[in-house]
């Protein structure tokens, strides 16, 4: 799931560089409202999990998002 999430982040934010799970969302130039919207939509599509904008505010790194997704799955 970790690898899948990284690929989803890359797709949502149009990234072609290597992305680490510890990377901060703010470090990506394409992390804007449209990027966030794309990520929310892709997470819904791939994991069938809905995340609110409010929840996203607490995520600094991809790992924060990953942990929140794991908690939701459980």
């Amino acid at each position, binding site marked *: 799931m970790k690898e899948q999430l990284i690929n989803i982040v890359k797709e949502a934010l149009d990234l072609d560089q290597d992305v680490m799970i510890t990377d901060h969302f703010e470090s990506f130039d394409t992390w804007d*409202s*449209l990027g966030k*919207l794309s990520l929310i*939509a892709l997470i819904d*599509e791939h994991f069938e999990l809905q995340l*609110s*904008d409010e929840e996203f505010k607490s995520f600094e790194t991809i790992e924060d998002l990953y942990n929140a997704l794991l908690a939701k799955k459980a």
Partner: protein
Amino acid sequence: MVTGASSGIGEATAIACDEQGATLLLLGRNEERLNHTLSKLSSRNHKILAIDLAEFEVVTAQLPVFLQDVPHLDGMVHAAGITSTYPFKLFKTEQLDNILKVNVQAAFYLTKLVLTKLNKEGSSLVFISSIMASVGEKAKTMYAMSKGAVSAGAKSLAIEYASRKVRVNTIAPGIVNTPMTANATYKTNENLLAETLAKYPLGFGEPEDVAHACVFLLSDASKWMTGTEITLDGGYSAK
């Protein structure tokens, strides 16, 4: 006849038409919510039909039965519809099919089925389109396509039916505070909300703002208007 009458613009239109003394046929997907709309109206002569207008076989079977005892229709406001805010890179043909089915096909299929019921002395059809039919915003490509089709279709329909005294007009609202837009991204994200609101000199609209324009288009006060779109957007597109 008012579609999408269980909430938002449709509900406000039902209330405004009731205040003007109209006898109404209210269509919506949810019977309970239609009854809720009905409870806000003063006349007891209105009728409701819980129906999904995108289920064409059901519409074909049920609508004629529902209309059987109705002598004629003086007008229709088609407010039923869905919105979509979806970045274009996630575009899927299935999603476009769905939004076109609900926003475009359902609107015009319903229109076809009520044609023979329209008052031969004159009638008025009003389609709720969107300002997105003529201007652009991020993540609105699919929604804009569907509303552009509604606005364009209504114009030709106006020409085709003018000789039968059927007037056809559209209303193109900007963002209106309704249940449909309550969960939209621009409403739930603080920064985006402030950014979007700043584009509206008069702020977001209320369902009543659109309902009043519907009443005007349904009435003889607009008897020389057909094939026209009324932009209602608090100044959004004036810049």
